[in-house]
């Protein structure tokens, strides 16, 4: 494209068009699974766990032990969050005797986002909406029969632009 055809010879420097537009469009894809974390039980508001920065520390504060990755924990989260302010995340499991479910966002200032107490008779399945500061692993922890199981998924988060 010649500047003459563009019609903006003198002002081209000031117009962040063309190449800028190309650079704005298009974005890489694809997440990959990442490391799980650690693991006990809770019946009070877990003040301390919410204060921890890392996912590992938060899980430890919440349960006092670590978790093992399990394909019986089905974590559903978007590949690319439409907006980091509202990321729908849900988990379901085929595990028995589930007593609690927790969600962590590894890269948030404090990793623990939510923890749910599941009494007998309540289904081991929860959907909620979380805030994500940036691209991060989302970890779901399921406590079942006193043991911890986890599933992890990376969710991409990007900033707003002229979309919508």
């Amino acid at each position, binding site marked *: 494209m010649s500047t003459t055809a563009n019609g*903006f*010879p*003198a*002002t081209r420097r*000031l117009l962040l068009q063309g190449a800028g537009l190309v650079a704005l469009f298009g974005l890489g894809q694809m997440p990959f699974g990442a490391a799980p974390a650690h693991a006990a039980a809770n019946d009070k508001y877990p003040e301390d766990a919410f204060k921890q920065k890392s996912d590992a520390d938060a899980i430890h504060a919440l349960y006092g032990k670590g978790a093992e990755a399990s394909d019986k924990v089905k974590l559903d989260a978007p590949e690319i969050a439409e907006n980091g302010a509202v990321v729908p995340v849900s988990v379901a499991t085929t595990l028995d005797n589930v007593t609690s479910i927790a969600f962590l966002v590894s890269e948030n200032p404090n990793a623990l986002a939510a923890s749910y107490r599941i009494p007998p008779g309540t289904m081991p399945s929860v959907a909620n909406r979380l805030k994500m500061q940036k691209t991060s692993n989302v970890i779901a922890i399921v406590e079942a029969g006193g043991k911890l199981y986890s599933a992890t998924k990376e969710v991409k988060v990007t900033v707003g632009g002229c979309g919508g």
Partner: protein
Amino acid sequence: MKNLTSNMMLIATLLISGATFARAASSEADFKAAYAAAEAANKEAAGLRNQWTTTAATLAAAKKSADSGDFDQAVTQSREAEALAKASVFQATSEKERWKDLEIR
């Protein structure tokens, strides 16, 4: 034809302002003149309903530099604001016809 003329004028203006960059230390009077010129160009853009946010931001930066006594910087920023304002005027003028290129028909 009209576009071409304003185009040439704009190039000329940019060349002139470019040439003056090389001058020695600027005074408050230099700043006031440069700032007034930028404001005038931005007013013209307003008349065409096409001001740029960056012009306003650069004008504000120029004022801030002047307030802190850095008139060299203030003059440079005023000229940048003027160039931006003129580019927005040029854009509005040329778009009066060019918008049709994109039309779905």
